[in-house]
Each structure stands twice: as structure tokens, then as C-alpha cells.
């Protein structure tokens, strides 16, 4: 079963072709990595899947459902979560609040029940808080949950972003360069965390430049270059692929 199907996806910005007829599937519960040199179109692909912008041609399906035309927030509702390359964006909130925000699509209290402090709001607030604490615990950050996010070290901000994305209860989690800027220790912890996320039944699709981490973690690898898919397979298969080697070393493929 494929949780994500990308079908003939093309995305152009003006005259620039960022994605050129890319098709692949992400199998349920399998950690899949999307790799490729800089400018290969990895982040563009993430943005099209997440709904930041629509595709020029082609379709994206989540568990069989066509996502074309759905806005980003609606896709989160359907179970597609993501993190960004530069981690956290809510510096004006504390760590726990950052994760509580992630419960937004799984809670309902509106502006009126909030303003008038209806009993339903109190109950929901409590469960939002408890759930958020649970996700902070999961990434190992429950200790200083009341610190402002802006003051956190980089590695922790990453983890808060992951906890926030997990709090939306995704079926598919897109991680954009989760290991960038982390030290060796933090990377080891990240590998453990991503495996644990997999055990929770969430399919992980990650963009990553750290090849050691990709080889260690990914059960399936998709390689993009200049907006085209040039290879896919297991780590072993992809590592032997001449086109992949050429793309990374900058040689012409014979």
C-alpha cells in the first residue's frame, strides 16, 4: 500500500522547471529518503506535497485521495505533517505552546467558546496541554517546557518542530533536512527518534544531505537531479547507480 503517490508532477516557476514529470510512491510505514544535489527540487517537491503551492501538472495522492486544490491547512487535517529546513517559526511562544499549536487540527474550540470560557474549552485546553507534554516527552524535551522557543539551542528547536508536527497526528511526516546543523550525538538521537516515529505507525519521508544518516535510516531512497527522478531503490541499489554517482560527483553520464 502506498500512503503517498506522486504522479507526473511538474512544477515551473516562470521559465524555470523545478520539477519535471516526477513520479514515485512512498510505501506505508517505510522510511523513505529523498536525496539529490542542491537545486535538485527536493524542497519544491515537499512544498507541492504539503500544499504550499499547487503543481503545474500532475497529482499528489495521500492514501489514495487526490490532494490537488486542497490548501495546506486542509492537508494537515487529512494527515500530512511537515517540518521546515530552518526548524522553528514561533519564537514568540514557549516550547510547550509551540507543541500545543500542533494540536490545532485535532481540537475544535472557536473564538466564542474561548472568549466566554465555556466548560468545553477548559476541558479541551487541559487535554491539549497533556497531549503536548506527551509529544515533548517523546522527543525528550519535557524538562524546560516553559522556556521561550527563541532562546533554545538549535538542536532543541529542531526537536520542538518535530514534536509540533507529531502533535498534528500525521499519517505521513515530511522532514526537511532534520539533521542539518546537529552534532554527532544529536544525530544519533535523531535516528532513534525517527525509528520510534516509524514504530508509532507514521510514514516518514525525509530530505537529507547527510548521506551516512540516510544510508543508516532509509529503507527506500529516491534520487532527484535537476528536477527529474534519476533513480530509486534501496541504499545499496542507489549507491551503485552510475547516474546517481555522476550527479553527485558532477560527471557526465556516459
Amino acid at each position: 500500500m502506498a500512503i503517498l503517490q506522486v504522479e507526473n508532477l511538474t512544477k515551473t516557476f516562470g521559465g524555470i522547471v523545478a520539477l519535471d514529470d516526477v513520479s514515485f510512491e512512498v510505501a506505508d510505514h517505510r522510511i523513505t529518503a529523498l536525496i539529490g544535489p542542491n537545486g535538485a527540487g527536493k524542497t519544491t517537491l515537499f512544498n507541492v506535497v504539503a500544499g504550499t503551492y499547487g503543481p503545474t501538472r500532475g497529482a499528489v495522492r495521500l492514501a489514495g485521495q487526490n490532494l490537488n486544490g486542497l490548501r495546506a491547512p486542509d492537508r494537515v487535517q487529512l494527515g500530512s505533517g511537515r517540518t521546515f529546513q530552518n526548524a522553528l517559526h514561533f519564537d514568540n511562544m514557549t516550547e510547550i505552546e509551540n507543541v500545543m499549536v500542533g494540536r490545532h487540527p485535532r481540537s475544535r474550540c472557536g473564538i466564542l467558546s474561548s472568549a466566554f470560557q465555556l466548560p468545553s474549552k477548559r476541558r479541551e485546553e487541559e487535554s491539549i496541554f497533556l497531549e503536548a507534554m506527551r509529544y515533548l516527552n517523546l522527543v525528550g524535551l519535557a524538562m524546560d517546557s516553559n522556556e521561550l522557543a527563541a532562546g533554545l539551542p538549535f538542536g532543541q528547536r529542531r526537536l520542538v518542530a518535530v514534536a509540533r508536527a507529531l502533535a498534528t497526528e500525521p499519517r505521513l511526516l515530511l522532514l526537511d533536512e532534520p539533521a542539518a546543523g546537529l552534532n554527532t550525538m544529536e544525530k544519533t538521537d535523531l535516528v532513534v527518534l525517527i525509528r520510534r516515529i516509524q514504530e508509532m505507525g507514521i510514514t516518514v519521508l525525509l530530505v537529507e544531505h547527510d548521506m551516512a544518516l540516510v544510508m543508516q535510516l532509509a529503507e527506500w531512497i529516491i534520487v532527484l537531479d535537476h528536477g527529474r527522478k534519476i533513480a530509486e531503490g534501496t541504499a545499496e541499489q542507489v549507491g551503485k547507480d552510475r547516474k546517481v554517482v555522476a550527479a553527485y560527483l558532477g560527471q557526465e553520464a556516459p
Partner: protein
Amino acid sequence: MNMQQFWRRRPNASALMLLAIVVGTLPLWVKSSYLISTGIFVGISAILTLGLCLLLGYAGQISLGHAAFYGIGAYTSAILTVKSGLNPWLAILIGIIVTASAAYLIGLFIFRLSGHYLAVATLGLGIIVYLAFGEFGELTGGPTGLPGVPRLAVGGFVFDGDVEYFYLVWSVVIVFLVLSLNVVNSRVGRALRAIHGSEAAADSVGIDSSRHKLQVLVMSVVFASVAGSLYVHYMRFVSPQPFGFTASVRLVVMAAVGGLASVWGALFGAAAVILLTVVLREFLPLVVPDASGEHTVIVYGIILVVIMVLMPEGLTVGLLKSIRWPSFKSKT
């Protein structure tokens, strides 16, 4: 639980109690009707600033035309009570509905813009509404205004003295303050701050930005509309002058002085700017002999620049930070 513990555990509830005590006892020892009247204006401005803080400080959406909504509330109350003889409370309610609907329709279009574009668009809208108050003379009384707005009354009790009106206005302030605090500390409040932080990131956690922006705009203009109604029933007269561009700028200054993302700051900002206006009115003519309202605008501008440079989080937060105040330090 002693008082200090209670203060730490429930800071908002404690501060609300303190505010209620201060406001409740103020007229008992302040006998100057001028000061009570100033207190009424501080209260009305606090309601307006509170609404603007939700929109600007929390959701991060600028409005340079907020006085227009204040004006729509004021004119709806005045026209309906003077021309149609409607019950003032019903007129206030209709004012709320009219203002909220106008804001909703405007918001549908205007929130396609952000940043400077949104600022310029709201500025333009504010000016259009202001001019409309002066132009539709048949309805609004034109530039000279509409006199004869009745006093507010409940049953046989008429709010005819300044002290009674002071209590009425500040009761509304406290109610709106509670509503604002509740919204800020809720799922919706977090969503607003998330939108302020980054709309892309807000998208990624399933927050419908446009929906939340519209909602907070409507809430904010409901406050403005009520403030407008309270204003005309106190002045018993309405003219375009208090709802122009200067008023909108003044509101932004009040919000900025108080600290944009601070519900309590709205109160301090409104009080600080109004007291400053009072002082300027007394002392500016001593420095500049033929000083007018325009000169006070210059002073507002200077204050805004200085505060934004020195204390970008506002006067309240800035001062609290500069004072070494152990109970405000975060626990480690």
C-alpha cells in the same frame, strides 16, 4: 494560600481584582470632575486599544484605519437614537452588527494583502469612512455633526453623572479585558500568535490563517463599535473629527506604548497617551504659542519612534524588564 502565592499562580485574576478595586474606589477619593471625565476617556480608549492589540499585537495584522470602525459604531448609535428614536441599547447592538458585518466584508478582500500593503489599504479605508461621515449630511449631520444623543439609562436609572458613566465604561473595560485574556490564552490565541510568527508554519500545523484573521478582526471591531457608542452617549453629540486618521494613529501609538502583544499593556498604553495629551494641552502652548492638534500628532510620532527603537516590546514590558523585579523573573 497567601496573597503572594495567589498572585503567582493566578496573575491575571489577581491583576483583575486589583484593577476592579482601583477603579471601584477611584471616584471616592478623586473629586475632580475633570479627572473623572479623563478617566472615562481612558476607559473608552482602553476598549479600542484592547481590540487593536488583539489584531495587531497577537495576529500581527496592521490596521491604520481602526478609528473608522469606532466611528461606524458611534454614528450608528447616534443616528438610530436621534433620527429614529430607537432604544439606545438596541442601537448599540445594531451598531455592533453593522460594524462587524462591514469588517467581515472588508476583511474578505483586504486580508489578501499583508505588511505594508495592508497598512496602506486600511489607511485608505479609514480615510474613505471618515470622509463619508462628513459628506452624507442628510444622515450624519455633515461636518458640523449630530447633536441630541440621549443618555443611557437602565429602567429608571439614568447614567447622567460622570461618576455613574465612569463606572459603566470601566465595567465594559473589565468585561472586554476578561474576554480578551480568555481568547489570548486559548487555542485561538495560540493560532493568532502562530500566524503572527509565520503563516507558512501556521499552515503546516493546519491553522486556517484567513479564517482566524477574519474572526479576530470582527472581535476587534466589536470592541471599537461599543467604544464608539459609549463615546457618543457620553458626549451626547457626534461629528467626524474624532474618527479621522489622527485617531487611528493615536490608537496604534497607544497599542505600541502599552506593548503590542499584551492585553494589560493596552490599558497602560491608553492611560499613558491620554495623560500625555492632557499634559501637552496644558504645556505645549507655553512652548509653541499657537500650538494646535497637529502639534500633538508630531509629539505622538516622536514618541512612537523612540519607543519602537528603545523598547520594541512596549513601555510596559520595557519598564518591567529594566526594573529588577524578582517575581517577574522566570523560574528555572
